[in-house]
């Protein structure tokens, strides 16, 4: 066996071998093509940590002439114990033979000690012509697992299982295009079963699962930091311009508001790019036809109704936050206020949120100590806007984090998003967000520890809102 766990992904052309590699290696650059024979050479994809290889997947070309190969092997058979040696002789004697280039490419890593992951398509019927391929793999004597990939809506899994069970010790269904992170870890754990004969392989795979899980958590925290910084920047941002004597303040105010809107849109776009990069999805596009919710203009009414809080949720959250502040006063006076602080806080908070301005930002004319005036638009005062931004960012994150790297089409939003997406955040957490939004507005930002708290709440909200159940 190889020094580190190595698995050759083999099978018929166009059964999703490259998709499985792209998913497991999180590499969106792997060419996934409908044309058979696109993969010409075996290509290793390693997972390394601190310079140590924990496992390697080898993407291989598909079988092109399996019957001819098997006939050659059978013609040279010298008994069951010599079968791997006969396979080796085949590869050695066909080096440079264009007819068997693909077969040699796919057998070479197996002969070097790789475990076998044989990929079939469970959405289409089983065919006897696969038996030659499975028989060849059996001849190699290497540990083998069959992966039933699902390319299309059909279901022939049972039929495939019956056939595969005769050739493979482990058979798993793995939908390369839809597998989320937990499914990928599940598959890696299954690799461990395949490698149980070699304890060092099993240990490496256990470490790989552990490291990938921690890496995933770190990515989620980094994505939350991106969203936190987006909220901080947007809520503390403002636009200003000199306002000379006699200038049209209304006109200037509108221009500044439009500039502010544009900057917020650009900032949201930048945050999305950063989140996609964290999950190695730089090439992913949110095309408007398929993904209209996230491409919906941030400031549109639809965005507000889809992503923000409803009026009731806004009032309840405002009231709860107000009650919390008032309660602190009650506590400070040792309860002598008979909970008046909490009551008044709740009323003020609730009414404030309900009647809060829907205007994007306040417009102020400020005089300078050293002369002259400036018209200032901002910071953002629209009560629901941070919730809309948060809701959109959380949904975007969920889709990016769940999308695997074999997908080549745009993200598609499922209908489960529903209305008032931010309203799905747990009520107690919404109060923390309201306080944070208030602090950002007051302080024009957050201190380091306050930002860290906001990141933690966003991580918690990410967990509230996903992943979707299969």
């Amino acid at each position, binding site marked *: 066996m190889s020094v580190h766990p190595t698995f050759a992904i083999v099978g*018929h*052309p*166009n059964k999703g071998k490259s998709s499985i590699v792209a998913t497991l*290696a*999180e*590499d969106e650059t*792997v*060419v996934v*093509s*409908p*044309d*058979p*024979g*696109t*993969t*010409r*050479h075996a*290509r*290793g*994809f*390693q*997972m*390394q*940590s*601190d*310079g140590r290889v924990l496992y390697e997947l080898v993407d291989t070309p*598909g079988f*092109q*002439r*399996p*019957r*001819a190969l098997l*006939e050659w092997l059978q013609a040279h058979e010298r008994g069951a114990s010599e079968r791997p040696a006969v396979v080796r002789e085949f590869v050695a004697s066909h080096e440079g033979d264009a007819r068997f280039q*693909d077969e040699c490419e796919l057998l070479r890593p197996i002969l070097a000690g790789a475990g076998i992951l044989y990929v079939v398509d469970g959405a*289409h019927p089983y*065919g*006897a*012509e696969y038996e030659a391929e499975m028989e060849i793999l059996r001849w190699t004597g290497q540990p083998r697992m069959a992966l039933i990939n699902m390319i*299309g809506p059909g279901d022939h899994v049972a039929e495939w299982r019956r056939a595969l069970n005769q050739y493979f010790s482990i058979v798993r269904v793995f939908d390369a295009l839809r597998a989320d992170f937990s499914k990928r870890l599940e598959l890696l754990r299954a690799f461990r079963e395949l490698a149980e004969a070699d304890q060092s392989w099993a240990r490496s795979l256990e470490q790989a699962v552990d490291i*990938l899980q921690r*890496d995933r958590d*770190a990515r989620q925290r980094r994505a939350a*930091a991106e969203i936190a910084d987006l909220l*901080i920047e947007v809520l*503390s941002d403002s636009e200003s311009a000199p306002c000379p004597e006699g200038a049209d303040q209304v006109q200037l105010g509108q221009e500044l508001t439009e500039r502010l809107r544009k900057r917020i849109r650009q900032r949201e776009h930048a945050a999305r790019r*950063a989140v996609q*990069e964290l999950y*190695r999805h*730089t090439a992913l596009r949110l095309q408007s036809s398929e993904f209209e919710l996230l491409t919906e203009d941030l400031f549109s009414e639809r965005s507000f109704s889809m992503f923000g809080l409803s009026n009731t949720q806004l009032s309840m959250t405002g009231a709860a936050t107000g009650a919390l502040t008032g309660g602190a006063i009650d506590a400070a006076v040792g309860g002598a206020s008979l909970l008046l602080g909490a009551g008044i806080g709740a009323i003020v908070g609730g009414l404030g949120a309900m009647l809060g301005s829907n205007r994007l930002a306040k417009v102020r004319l400020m005089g*300078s*100590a*050293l002369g002259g005036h400036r018209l200032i638009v901002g910071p953002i005062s629209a009560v629901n806007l941070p919730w809309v931004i948060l809701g959109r960012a959380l949904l975007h994150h969920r889709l990016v984090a769940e999308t695997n790297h074999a997908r080549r089409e745009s993200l598609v939003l499922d209908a489960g998003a529903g209305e008032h997406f931010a309203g799905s955040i747990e009520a107690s957490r919404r109060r923390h967000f309201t306080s944070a939004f208030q602090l950002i507005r007051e*302080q*024009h*930002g*957050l*201190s*380091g520890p*306050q*930002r860290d708290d906001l990141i933690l709440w966003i991580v918690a909200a990410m967990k509230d809102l996903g992943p979707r159940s299969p």
Partner: protein
Amino acid sequence: MHDARPGSLFHEALEIPAWLEADGTRSLTDRLERDRSIAATLPGSDPIARVRHWWLAVRRDTPPAAPDAEFAANLSRARGIITFLMLLIGALAGAGTAAAVFRYDGTWPVNVVTVLAVLAVLQLVLIALTLILMLPKVPGLGALQSLLSGLNPGALAAALYRRVAGRKDERSRLLVWHEARGPAAGRFARWQMLTWSQCAAVSFNVAALVCALVLIAFTDLAFGWSTTLRLDDADVYRLARLLAAPWRELWPAAVPSAELIEHSRFFRLAASPPSAVAASELTGWWPFLLAALLTYGLLPRCCLLLLASIRLRAATRNLLLDDPRVRALLDRMSAADVHLGSDVKETAAVFPDVDARPAPAMSGDAAVVVWSGALPLGEVHRWTAEHLRWRVTEAMAAGNRTIAADAAVVERIAGLQPEALIVYVRGWEAPLLDLQDFIQALRAKVGSQCSLILVPVGANGDVSSESQRSIWSRWTARVGDPALYMETGA
């Protein structure tokens, strides 16, 4: 070579985030790799030290963009200039004030009450106001703090600088408290303002002290005390002893005696200044005044300057560390080294996007081969009649068993001499070279005139889907046989 001295922390707090902003266009993978490898060479865990060492390493390869470096240098310089101006203004004001309060023209003596009021009491009031400014934001004190900061010489100097420099860059707001955005910037601007004002205050006191010493040493000053308030000698004695309490043990000579107080009182309503007989006693006040100036002017200001400098240093650290780009950098520096992917370049085949041609004729007799069980043989006649207009003369299966069995099928077809041969294939399967071998073997036997027509069939005997047809069409064209066609039956 980069200057990593502690004094340049402010410069770096401006330069590093700007550099990181531009660096954001590089791929995250590259940045992770670079930052992690630099971090691996760094000792210690102090985040500031790590960031500054990282900066030292990284800027060797990629120096900061000229405008950013220039801006940071200019703002650092402006900060230095303002500090110098505050020292100068303080010194001039101190010397001027001392010269004014110690003014003696040989007639009326220098009034000790005036000197104390200006150089001790007034300073104590200003120190109290400074302490209010130093407090964190307290509800109820906000308006007073805001007013005081507006009057603070440090704030005025910064506002004047911004006005004169006319900088549009957000970062130039760092020097102006009310314009600084965010807690870190606000804290920095506040302590910067207080540091400047304390620089001016220390300079004021040093200059006042030096000026007083010079006047005492090189001129013959006379001191007395005079006040409209109804204070008698005993009151003033008690007050003087109270003021001298901090140095009474250390410098007894700087505590005025009851006799001195009694003899040095003067009234301007008197016909003439105090007599010359008392002149030697009248000069006895100066140690007390110098000690008061040191204790109530210079010493607290030095303490405040020290405190403001320490807080400014902490605020400058926060300015750097609270920046989201710097925090992201620290995160990258400590990120686990996880690498997924291939070091081998992809060498995928690229095929021309050419489709197969349809069969030139669609009627007549045709032999049929069902490849790999694409259709049950019993279904061939019905399927062909339903989807194609050929009449089936004979149907055979191939691609299922051995290559020798396929060769026998080829021989049998050659014997039939068909004008056309239909090959049904499984549309959902990828075409293999195995099939190509069979087609080429057929062609060799049936001659170039025979039309070979590939028909991909869908699962369950349906016609194939559009995507399946597209794959088969391109493959058929790639085989390069001029009489090999593709039909779909759709």
